[in-house]
């Protein structure tokens, strides 16, 4: 049981990080880079609930912080992903979570994370935040997450329900 859950989460995390860093970030899309890892955090939180979502978010954030090609303060992503997981699991009751609401939730959380990351980075003395492009980043980031949401959240929900029905929300 635990093993299966661990396997699902590890595979999801590896696929998400690899795809994001090796593929999505190199597509050269305008505005923000599609944040597949964040969407996967939200998907896990929606499938397994808040606490498992936060653990997954912590792992994903720490890994992203340590992984190459991210140069932020270690821990910022972990903290943000934990908050995102909490919000995703708790904002809307799972019984009321229709597909449009789910997509809107993913987009809104993405925008919030981008904004909070900018605030945190500048508070922690990181000078690379460009506030001039924040509106564009928020808009495109939310849009890309909205596009990724049905592709990630729904298959992951099905996989979780099929292989680990006991702990699924």
């Amino acid at each position, binding site marked *: 049981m635990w093993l299966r859950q661990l396997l699902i989460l590890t595979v999801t995390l*590896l696929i998400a*990080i*690899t*795809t994001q*860093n*090796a*593929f999505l970030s*190199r*597509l*050269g899309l305008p505005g923000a880079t599609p944040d597949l890892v964040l969407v996967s955090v939200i998907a896990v939180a929606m499938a397994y609930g*808040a*606490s498992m979502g*936060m*653990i997954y978010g*912590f792992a994903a*954030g*720490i*890994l992203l*912080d*340590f*992984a*190459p090609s991210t140069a932020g*303060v*270690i*821990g*910022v992503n*972990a*903290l943000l992903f*934990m908050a995102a997981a909490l919000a995703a699991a708790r904002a809307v009751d799972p019984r009321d979570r229709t597909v449009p609401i789910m997509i809107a939730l993913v987009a809104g959380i993405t925008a919030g994370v981008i904004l909070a990351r900018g605030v945190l980075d500048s508070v*922690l*003395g990181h000078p690379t935040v460009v506030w001039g492009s924040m509106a564009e980043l928020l808009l495109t980031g939310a849009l890309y997450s909205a596009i990724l949401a049905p592709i990630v959240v729904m298959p992951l929900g099905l996989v979780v329900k099929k292989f680990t029905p006991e702990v699924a929300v």
Partner: protein
Amino acid sequence: MLQRRARVVVAILVVITLTFAILDLRGGKGPFATFRSVVGTAVGSIESVGAAIFSPVLAVGSWWGTWGDQRDQIAALQAQNKALSDLVRRSAEDRARADALDGLLKVAGAGRYRITPAEVIAVGPEQEFSWTVTIDIGTQDGIERDMSVINADGLVGRVSAVHRTTSTVVLIVDPSVSVGARIAGSEEVGILSGTGDQNSLEFQMLNPLAKVDVGQAIVTFGSKNGKPYAPGIPIGEVTEVRGTAGQLTRVAAIRPFADLTALTIVGVVVRPPRTDPRDSVLPARPATEPSATPTPTASPSSSAELLEATPQPSPRAS
């Protein structure tokens, strides 16, 4: 809210995160340098595998990206190529036109004709049995009916209808056309008429005893006020004489100087010369060509035919 155990877990995680952040913010290499390099190596190797997997997909992306550029480039190069080949073709055309105009000017200068150059823009359909062409000048260029039309080689025809910007020229090969003509170097006159054949005209001499020789040139006799034909314009040369001297009608076949199947630049004689230029417009003839020599001794067969008046039937008598 969360269960007690979960709350503890989350709190521990937050504490760890904050610890990491604070330690990282202290700067320097810190305690994470090793950890970071280990994780970086691990994630980096995963990412390089991912890059290898995704590189064909990305290559497709870049292919799509450059495709438009290449298409634009191809279009630009094609346009350039077309413009350049147009230029090359047109320069050859321009040279031909310049040569034709040069020849026309020479003829006009020799005969003191005042001409207006024109370009043939249309040729009448052959199935209508009227040999006409359309030129690109008309009343607004001072063209009137019955003016002579020449090119660098000789007479082409006369203007049969004038419009504002175009005119119709009926060629001398048209069967309905008759031109008063004179054998160059003599006073013998006759009537030249078209046969419908582009390379042959019929010259009917008024004097049945006239001396005519193969190779002799024919020029226009000229009409009153130069209409429809200005005097002295070269028409063609005799290629064959039918019938014998003394017969009621003697007919010579004339090959026109002007190539009437390939007309491009022509000139309309808008004012004929004050005096008949006589034979001065005729091109200088090469003396090496035996059939072109008008002396009676040069060609025994034809001179015999002409002078002795033997009642031999012409091989092509019809």
